[in-house]
């Protein structure tokens, strides 16, 4: 499967407080409204400027902080097709897979905001068409491939009637 869109570059240590701030806590039960503020504390213009299909591109330790699953959910809900980063925080990584949002570990130094990217999930490749550079990303752990392939954790559980990741 290949995904196409523009890159939105963020720095290192983007926390779940940047993505879904605590001051918008009352919107946690209204995800479409919360999604209008996605990543607001990292870039106040982002939510209004991005287009569906675009990519969020981070540096190191993307998604650190709280366990709020709302963070990957509103990124997905806003229409982002995948997150690329050098590394992800543990809980965020697991949450993203559980909600069916692809996340890719690769060297993001050579990606800037506005670059046109094409991601081939099965080949494990990111093509930066603007810079004409090809990047490889690390394959997901097998347990997570199964969950993502089933369409997220709830679908996985419904399909198998249990956790089937061993």
């Amino acid at each position, binding site marked *: 499967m290949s995904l196409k869109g523009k890159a939105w570059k963020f720095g290192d240590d983007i926390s779940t407080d940047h993505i879904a701030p605590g001051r918008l806590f009352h919107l*946690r*039960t*209204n995800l479409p409204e919360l999604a209008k503020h996605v990543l607001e504390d990292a870039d106040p213009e982002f939510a209004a400027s991005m287009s569906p299909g675009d990519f969020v591109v981070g540096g190191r330790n993307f998604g650190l902080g709280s*366990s709020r699953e709302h963070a990957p959910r509103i990124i997905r809900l806003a229409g982002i097709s995948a997150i690329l980063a050098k590394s992800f925080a543990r809980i965020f990584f697991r*949450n993203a897979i559980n909600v069916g949002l692809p996340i890719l570990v690769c060297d993001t130094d050579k990606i800037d905001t506005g670059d046109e990217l094409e991601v081939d999930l099965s080949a494990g490749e990111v093509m930066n068409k603007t810079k004409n550079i090809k990047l490889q990303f690390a394959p997901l*752990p097998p*347990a997570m491939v199964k969950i993502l392939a089933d369409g*997220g954790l709830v679908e996985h559980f419904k399909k198998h009637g249990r956790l089937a990741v*061993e």
Partner: protein
Amino acid sequence: MGETLAEKILSAASGKSARAGEIVIVDVDVTAVQDGTGPLTIEQVKELGGRPVNPDKTVLFIDHAAPSPRSELSNAHRTMREFAHETGARLSDVNQGIIHQRLIEEYVRPGDVVVGADSHTCMSGALGAFATGMGSTDIAIAMVSGKTWLRVPETYRIVVGGEFPSGVYPKDLILYLIGKIGAAGATYKALEFGGPAVAEMDVAGRLTLANMAVEAGGKVGLFPSDEKTRQFLASVGRSDDWSELRAETDANYERIYEIDLGALEPMLAAPHTVDNSFKVADAKGVKLDQVFIGSCTNGRIEDLRVAARILRGRQVNKDTRLIVTPASRLVYIQASKEGVLTDLAEAGALITAPGCGVCVGVHGGILGDGEVCLATSNRNFKGRMGNPKAEVYLASPATAAASAIKGEISDPRDVL
């Protein structure tokens, strides 16, 4: 090769030998959610067509917005109360306190597997439980199936020796350690604490250390269950829940950190990351608009006693607000009985209901643009206390109390 604490607990919970790097499916003892993550968990439980298989150990905590500052949140609370009522799950309502403090007071036993939809669930590791934070959907699956999947983590062992110098506390140790490991340095790892100083450390101190394991990326912060654990469980009326648990002596550790407490100084984390670690001595004089003593990290009776001892007979600086939040109702009552709340209030502190509001920027103590706060909580991320244009420093309750008196970052050793 012997088992680390993490391997030992997960072997017992999975019914097979669980070694670092393996994926195991384990029986879950306690599942927990709070009012930020709970409504989504409930939605997923309903989507799965299930109900909690172990309602007595399924606990819904109303703490992040307690008591509720807005109708949307009051409605989320209603959803949680109704769910508890319908399914028999346990409810910890607005007056009871912070999820992690309540978990160790009432629910968690050594050797348990505890999963919570809150990242600081790792705090329960201080009692020798494999406790870790996950998202709402993972917790929904754990509720309806009684199971979760885990990758058995490799372990970093933290060997602590020596004695805390005057004015230096477990919070200083963990801030120092996170500065050393880095905010992502222990991602996917278990931190296992041991050594002579850990054997001597009371559970309150252990909780502060385990609480912040996640700030180094860790999955859990683990302690052996020993005499100190037994004493703690007895103090909350749960002697029967105690059992001894320790890692095997020939366990395999990926890394070992050795720390001599004697060389440690009061520490702080400067904005906006927890690993931005400094000695208090090097940051003295930063003006503070607000000081916050509370949270699951440092809102226990032991923390409030330290602050009260420093503030007794002194006054909070007129240009600084001091907010104190006991971590739970039990802590509140104990502090009240001991006169600790009176000491704090007489010094000029504002004392709030037990809960999370100030720590997480939901309500109470929201900072203004350009304001600076020193807090005893565990995170100083941009926006954390309700305003991305404010700055948050993290430190121990002693540093917080000393700083509240001066109205600027101050070394507690100067006032002790």
